[in-house]
């Protein structure tokens, strides 16, 4: 079978790459599959764009707003920390 469908990067379909992309980015694919995905990305513009958009989505998630403790609660904690470390706190 010297079919170009068996060439590196072509034994895997785009629809499969789309399903493997997280395992690929997490580095948990076995080495044969990872090589095949990489060979595919070397050939396939669409999948390249797709994977880059997954990365862009992940990066953007690092910038969404998050809730935190109120300023008052944070100040209370710092005060508790200072109290605990006050040199004169010897009772």
């Amino acid at each position, binding site marked *: 079978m010297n079919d170009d*469908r068996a060439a590196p990067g*072509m034994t895997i*379909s*785009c*629809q*499969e790459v*789309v*399903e493997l*992309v*997280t*395992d690929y*980015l*997490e*580095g*948990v694919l076995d080495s044969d599959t990872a090589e095949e995905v990489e060979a595919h990305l070397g050939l*396939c*513009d*669409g*999948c390249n*764009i*797709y994977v880059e*958009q*997954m990365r*862009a*989505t*992940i*990066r*953007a*998630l*690092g*910038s*969404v*707003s*998050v*809730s*935190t*403790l*109120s300023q008052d*609660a*944070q100040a*209370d*904690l*710092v005060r*508790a*920390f*200072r109290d*605990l*470390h006050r040199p004169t706190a010897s009772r």
Partner: protein
Amino acid sequence: MRHGRSPKPSNGPGPDHAYDRGSPAARLAGIEFNDNTDAQLVDLLRAGDADAFAEIVRAWSPMMLRVARTYVSTEASAQEVVQDAWLALIRGLDRFEGRSSLRTWMLAILGNLGRSRGVREARTVPWSSLGPTEDGRPLVDPDRFRGPDYRWPRHWTPVGKPRPWPRSPEEETMAGEGRSLLEDGLAQLPERQRTVVTLRDVHGLSSDEVCSILGLSASNQRVLLHRARSRLRGHLEPYYATDASAAGDRGVGT
């Protein structure tokens, strides 16, 4: 004094992006801890450096609050759990032996406090099993791929092929313009997907940390992460894959 000698390797892009919110302090606290930075931080805290403490409170509390929220049922309870965890940390600092990173130790304290409080609130989330019905839709529309009879089956069709995004979602999210779009996408995810992707990609926890917090297997964690990330990419796509910059209200999903 002993400090951690072998921090666990973490998978994935790592936490360094998540706390990179501008301040040097946040960057300090968000970087992947190695022996030195962790040891330095512990030394500063033991020496009573209140600035160092204020810095990690600022840097870690958002992540801790989100983790606490997985144990308890209200935001108010989560706030109390996080404050209690900080108090437990400063009181127990002398007992910290550095066998794990300080952050891992903190997550263990938070987990203990959160779980016992969650039990009292009878909060139970079936994290350990993956609900097959939670999300049956395909992650990418199957019509975007060739059928089985094409020479290269299941490859992108010319129309279905992803188009490059001329603008970067990261820049727009930081600038606030794309933020509501992404937050909207997060809000539409099933709860477990939302929690996993938020802990991993918003707060920068490692896959090991997320598995341990949620009691998930590594493979289930990845399935949830994959579904969430794929959905979010799809949510952004109609907005970014168009050249018109005023396309913000051009419907996402339907």
